[in-house]
Structure formats: structure tokens, C-alpha cells
């Protein structure tokens, strides 16, 4: 028997599975929050979830709706501030994994969360970097969330808010970055990763019921589809945890499966 689940549920779980037990998880707003919370509750119980606002390892009895939500200050091991949070993000002794959303992404995982159109008179203005540029520069690795369509997966960004693999290959190292870079892009269709040498995005996992061709059609640049594997569907335990413990009000999960 197959379990019914939504794309958002699949996305949160696909991302959460990538956390190693013991990682220090840096969570943004929205799906990022779900992914970190579900990782902590299932895959990586000894991980620590923290927020750029300075809340470290809250109980997450209720799901925060922003990184400054009082729910990130409750039952924590430490309530600090932004400077402490960013010192953790980039700390050489910590494996910090950042979960982030973005408005646009290119083939090398560079992201835009600032604007569409001209910077001074944009067609659409987004909130801006927040901690996104910092996570892309300083974290051990970044897992990105995107809705998969050609307006978002673009050949050229309107604004480069956070540096990924830049022009690919050794470009990131040559630009002076000591570590980090995007490790995966989790979308409503599947999971993309980056080629070890060229650093170009390729399709790594397809969700059950999705065809590789859909990914190609939803992507505004050339994507290698040849390495795609089938993603495991959510398990009963994963769904139960996500629905009953992490987001029972479905504040971020959105409507339940039909």
C-alpha cells in the first residue's frame, strides 16, 4: 500500500535526510525550519538546530514561523544574539549545515534572494540576503529549497545574493572561500546535486511519480539527467513525525494530501 503525501512533505524529508547525526543545523524560515526540525526528531537526534537570531537548540514544541519567533527562544541551551550565531555558522571546528530558500538559482548553485530586474528599480523586490549570503560564504555546506520552474532555475541571476560554486570548477576556491558551498537543491520535483569536478548542477534524485523530462522542462539551463536515482518515498514514521510532532497545524506544510 502506498502512503499519500504532499510535495512539501517530500521536500522537508528529502532535505532532512541529508543531515548527519551531530551536525549543527542552521535553519531559515519556512521549509528550512521543517527540514531541520524533522532531521532532529528522526534522522539526527544529536544534532543541534540553531537560528541566526541567536536561539540555540530550542525544544521546538511548536513550529516557529520566523527565525525571530519566540518559539526559537524557548527551552534553548542558550539565548544569544546575531554575532554569536554567525560565529557558530562559520566556526572551523563545527560541521554547520545551512537550510535556505531562494528566489532564483543558476547551474552552479549561486542564488538570488534580492530582486528581479534592475537593482535600483526592480520589477520584483524580495526581502534581501538576511543571512543567506553569510550561509553561502561561511557554512560547512548548504541545502537549498526551490520551487522548480524556469523562472527560478535560470541561466543568469538578476542579482547574486549568495555565492555558490560561482563559475564552477575551482572558481569558489580561487575566489578565496575556505569551505562550504551548496551541497544539494531540494525542489518539488527532486533533489539536484553538484558534480564533484565541474560543480555543475545535475539531477540526483527524482521523487516517485516524477519524470526526468519534467525537471528538464522546468529548468532554464542544461541539466544532466543521466545520474538520477529514484528517491525513497516518505516512510510511515517520517510522515507521522512531520505531521504530528513538527507541524500539526500545517502552518508550513500547507494543505494535506487529497
Amino acid at each position, binding site marked *: 500500500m502506498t502512503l499519500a503525501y504532499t510535495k512539501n512533505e517530500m521536500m522537508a524529508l528529502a532535505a532532512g535526510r541529508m543531515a548527519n547525526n551531530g551536525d549543527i543545523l542552521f535553519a531559515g*524560515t*519556512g521549509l528550512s525550519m521543517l527540514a531541520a526540525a524533522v532531521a532532529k526528531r528522526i534522522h539526527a537526534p544529536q544534532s543541534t538546530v540553531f537560528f541566526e*537570531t*541567536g*536561539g540555540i537548540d530550542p525544544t521546538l*514544541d*511548536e513550529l*516557529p*514561523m*520566523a*527565525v*525571530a*519567533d*519566540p*518559539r*526559537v*527562544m*524557548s527551552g534553548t541551551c542558550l*539565548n*544569544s*544574539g*546575531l*554575532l554569536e550565531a*554567525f560565529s557558530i555558522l*562559520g566556526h572551523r571546528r563545527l560541521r554547520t549545515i545551512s537550510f535556505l530558500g531562494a528566489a532564483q538559482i543558476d547551474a552552479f548553485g549561486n542564488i538570488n534572494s*534580492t*530582486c528581479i530586474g534592475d*537593482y*535600483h*528599480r*526592480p*520589477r*520584483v*523586490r*524580495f*526581502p*534581501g*540576503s*538576511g*543571512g*543567506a*549570503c*553569510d550561509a*553561502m*560564504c*561561511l557554512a560547512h555546506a548548504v541545502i537549498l529549497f526551490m520551487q522548480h520552474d524556469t523562472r527560478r532555475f535560470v541561466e543568469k541571476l538578476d*542579482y*547574486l*545574493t*549568495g*555565492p555558490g560554486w*560561482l563559475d564552477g570548477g575551482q572558481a*569558489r576556491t580561487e*575566489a*578565496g*572561500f*575556505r569551505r562550504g558551498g551548496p551541497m544539494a537543491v531540494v525542489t518539488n520535483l527532486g533533489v539536484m546535486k553538484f558534480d564533484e569536478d565541474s560543480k555543475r548542477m545535475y539531477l540526483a534524485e527524482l521523487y516517485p511519480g516524477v519524470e526526468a523530462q519534467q525537471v528538464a522542462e522546468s529548468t532554464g539551463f542544461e541539466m544532466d539527467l543521466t545520474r538520477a536515482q529514484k528517491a525513497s518515498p516518505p516512510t510511515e514514521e517520517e510522515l507521522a513525525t512531520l505531521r504530528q510532532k513538527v507541524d500539526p*497545524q500545517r*502552518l*508550513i506544510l500547507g494543505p494535506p494530501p487529497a
Partner: protein
Amino acid sequence: MPQHNGGDSKVMSAGEAVGRFIHDGDMVALGGFTVTRNPMTLAREIARRGIQDLHLVAHSQGQALDLLVGAGCVRRIEIAYGGNGRFAPTCICFRRAVQEGRLEVEDYSNFQMSLRFLAGALNLPFMPCRSGFASDLLVHMGFGPELRGQGKIPPHKMVVADDPFSRQPEKVLLLPALTPDVALVHAQYASADGTVRIKGLTFLDLEQARAASRVIVSCEEIVPESFLRQDPDQNSLPPFLVDAVVHAPFGAHPTACHYFYDYDPRHLNMYRQEAGGDDSFRGYLDKWVTACPSQEDYLAQVGAADLMRIRANSQAGYAPGLDRR
């Protein structure tokens, strides 16, 4: 025992504090972060008085920023993030103003803005940073060359320099310090002399206050100095950095104030609707700003039922089970 900072009481009304300490064109640092501890009573007072041409500086700001932009008080912003979590992924009035070319914005990252306030707080001219290389934060200036070096606008947005302590050639970004004219802080507790205690996350409020020339603190409770001095480890600002203490219960509403109240999802959802158009937003301002000259008027407008609904549970610090859709 000697008298403590004896001095006169700094307690005054929001009107007096804003009137005395904020002027047209000032650089104002907004405390709080998206949905928490925004200095809303003070922001509404600024809007009500029609203060103009403000230059706002913040890391991530939501409600106070958006209200001030929507009310036409703001000319320029230096910021990392203008959003309000799930209630407004991008701040509504902010977005419209930028898209219509009515606001000059200079973008930084949260860490960069944090370091800039820290530099101001420590009386240092700049801070080095390794975050921002190869990004458009480094490339696109929000303020034109004619403004560079004028007033409080630094001559460069950021500067790429060599790290003199690295063994291999290595670059570092230098970020200019921020020294706002005024910092606005909403705290849980303050005493009449100006001692301040913030509970929960402090964000960057303390660095912003230490970097500023003047500091206005609104607070949930005014408590005796002796209460705050029973456990000085928990206090946040010394009195000599604070110019005005404004008693403003629910002074961060509709944003949250840890241990006192949660954010108000109904108000924030209603705000999203009203802020969507110029006319409807004028209606919002009429009802919630103009028609409410005092915090008491404003709370009466919110109504007891909504205030009770968001009241924080003492253990959790927020309102467990609150309908936040």
C-alpha cells in the same frame, strides 16, 4: 550605600521622547527582528508626527520598518532583510516603495550589518569580514556617488583589502561602522534611571544602542532600580546610555515580546491585506495610528479579547496553541 546615578527620572511619554530625540533626516536604528520586539509604539509615534526623510538602519526588520516606510517617513534604508516571516515573506510597503523607486536601499547581509553595528559600538572605524566576496552585495551600490561621504553615508559601501596577517595572499572585505543618531529598543523591563533588561534573544539591540548617539527605550514594565540590581547579570544596558524610558505595555504589538505576549497573527494577516494598496494602507494608518494618539487608545482598538489571546504562558514565553494561520 551611595545613591545610584541618582539623577532625574528619564520616564516620559512616547510623544515627548520622539519629539525631543528624533528629527527629520536622522539615521535611526530599529531594534527587534521581524516578528519580535519591534519598537511599534515608538514607530507609530514617529508616523503620527510625520517625521520625514529618515535613514533607517537594521539587520532584519519587519513590522516597524514597513509601517514607517508605508507612512512616508523614510527616505533611505541600509538593511539585510525586509520581511516578516510567514506573514510577509517580503515586507509589503517596503516592496512596493522599492519597486516604485520611492526608497533608496543599500543591501548588506545580516552578518555584515551586525559587524557594522559592532564597529560603531566599539568605537572602531570598520570591521573586516569574509562574508560577501563574489556577491552582488559588493557590486551594487544603493546610494549614488553624489551621496557618498555625505552626512552619515560612508564614502564606500565596502572595500576589498589585503589581509596583512595571512601567509598566502588573501583578501578581506572592510565594512564601515554604523553610528546612528538614534536607536529604538523595546524591552521587557526598564527602571526610571534608564537601566534596561531584555529577556529572550537580544538580537543586535545592545550593539545598536551602544553605537547610537541617543537611545529611546520603550518597555512593558517600569520597575524599581533595586529590582534590576538584584541580578545585574541579566541586565542589558547601563542607564547612562539611555535618554528616554517610555512605558508602553504591549509596545511591540503586533510583534511578540518574549514572556509577555506572542505576535498577533490576526493583526499581521490583516496588515498584509491592508498594506497591499495605497488606499487601503491609508485606512490602516487612519485607524491604527492617527485615531490612536496614545498607547491606551491603540490597545482599546486592538481589544481585550485579542490581547488575551496572545498573552504568553509563563513557562513557554509565548502563547501555546495560538491559531497562527
